[in-house]
Structures are given as C-alpha cells and as structure tokens.
C-alpha cells in the first residue's frame, strides 16, 4: 500500500523555493485561538481598547500567524516526509489584522546529516507576507525529515 506522496530527505535540494496559497485571517480565527490557547490579551480581544492603539484594531496573536504559516507550508507542494520540528528562530515584524490575507514564501537554506540514520535535518527560511507583500513574520525552522527507506 502506498500512502500519499511525500518527499524524502534525499529528494530535497538546498536553494529550492516555495510559495503557498493565501489564507485570509478572520475574526473567527482570532476568537478560536484565544479560546484554545487561553491568551486573552487585549491586543487580540478588546476591539474598543484597540481603536486607540497604534494598530487601530485587534490584531492576530503572533503564534496564530505562526500556526497558520505552518499549515500553509504543507500546501506549497509535495509535503516533506516530516518527522517533526527541531528548532525555530522567529521574528514578528508587523501586525496581522482581521481580513489580511497571508501566505508563506520559503527557501531551503541547508541540509544536515544527523546521528540517527533514518532522518536528516532540513533548514527552511520562511517569510510570512500579507496582501501588500509586507513581511509580517519571518524566521527559520529546522525540520527532521525521513530518509528514503532502504530496499
């Protein structure tokens, strides 16, 4: 039985670039994320207070943007045979507001062997862009990707 197509460590090349489809971030996303995470910071939940802030309105949780880009990344093409995320280095550069449409642009910057023979480490540099092509988040993730099974 063969499962859905996945790309092994060996098949991924340094320098590959990807761009994801867009996703519009809605008020519902923010409300659900606040409920799920328990992070009710006024930045995300108090529309009246935020009118007088530098943002002028509620903004999405930074970590909601991170979670959404993680899902978008899996829609950039044939997904990696990912075993997990190793490390992340991440910067929040600007707000994601209700109605903004974000997408991910990503590039493979490094591949590394690991002690475990069934997997390798793939470093992916990512930018989260809004509909005006402004970078709202950016960072690097090291992903553990399965090697092609022997035989």
């Amino acid at each position, binding site marked *: 039985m063969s499962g859905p197509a996945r790309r092994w460590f060996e098949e991924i090349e340094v320098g590959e670039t990807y761009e994801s489809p867009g996703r519009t971030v809605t008020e519902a996303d923010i409300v659900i994320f606040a409920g799920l995470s*328990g992070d009710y910071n006024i930045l995300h939940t108090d529309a009246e207070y935020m009118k007088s802030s530098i943002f002028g309105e509620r903004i999405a949780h930074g970590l909601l943007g991170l979670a*959404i880009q993680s899902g978008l990344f899996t829609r950039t093409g044939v997904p990696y045979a990912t075993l*997990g995320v190793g490390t992340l280095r991440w910067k929040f550069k600007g707000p994601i507001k209700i109605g903004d449409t974000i997408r991910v642009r990503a590039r493979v910057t490094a591949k590394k062997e690991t002690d475990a023979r069934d997997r390798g480490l793939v470093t992916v540099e990512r930018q989260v862009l809004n509909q005006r092509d402004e970078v709202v988040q950016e960072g690097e993730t090291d992903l553990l990707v399965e090697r092609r099974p022997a035989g």
Partner: protein
Amino acid sequence: MVGPVRFYFEDVVLHGVLDTPAMTITETHVGLYAGLSQDVPPEPGLVPELLPLCLTPGLGWRVNQPPLAVMAFMGFEWEVLHPVRVGDTIHSRSRTAVKRSMREGGVIVEERQVINQRGEVVQKGRFTFLVAKRPS
C-alpha cells in the same frame, strides 16, 4: 474608575521564576488546533509540535499575577526536545533572563520551558517582549 490591573516593565523581577498551573492536552485541543491551522500531528496520538508552544502564553495567564502589559511580541527561539502525546499534562516554567529599559517601554527576555507530568522538559526556548512602563 478602576481599570484592569496590569503587570508593567517596572514590576518584572529579573531572574524571577514562575510556574504555571498544568493542563492535559486532549484530542480536542489537537482537533481544534488542526482545524484552525491545518497543522497536523506527524502521527496519530502525537501533538503537533507548535501546539504546546502556542499554549504557553495562556498558561502564563493562570499564574497569580496580573497579565504582563505586552506592547509587542518581538520574537522567540524554540527547541523541541521530546514529543508530547495526547493525554500528557504540561505546564510552563519561565524565568526573566533579560530586562532592558528603552525610551518607550522595555525589553523582557524570558526563558521558557514546557514540562510534562514526569518532570521532563519537552520544549524550551526564549521569548522576547516589548513591555509597557507604568503610566506616570
């Protein structure tokens, strides 16, 4: 009129350690998170790696201290050390590592760990926040 109580830059204790209450991660958490983000676990029974990270700020809201007056979440570094499984009970421990005053507010760097029911540190990293100063 009394406004909401907030924890300002001046209130933050350098090297202060805070332990949050714990929470059991359920299929419901994973399902809601996956529906919201399309970020799914690598295999059934595991929790997507970013979910415990996403839950740490909310756990922080449950300590007996007013919420930090965060003006902006500037960034973080994070390391996934061990898998978290559905049914695991996690809490978060944080320590203020850096406190730097700026003209507008101040920068706080927090070392944060996610710890499971066996006391194992499963994820850890550093969060950087811009925090408001107490209004004069």
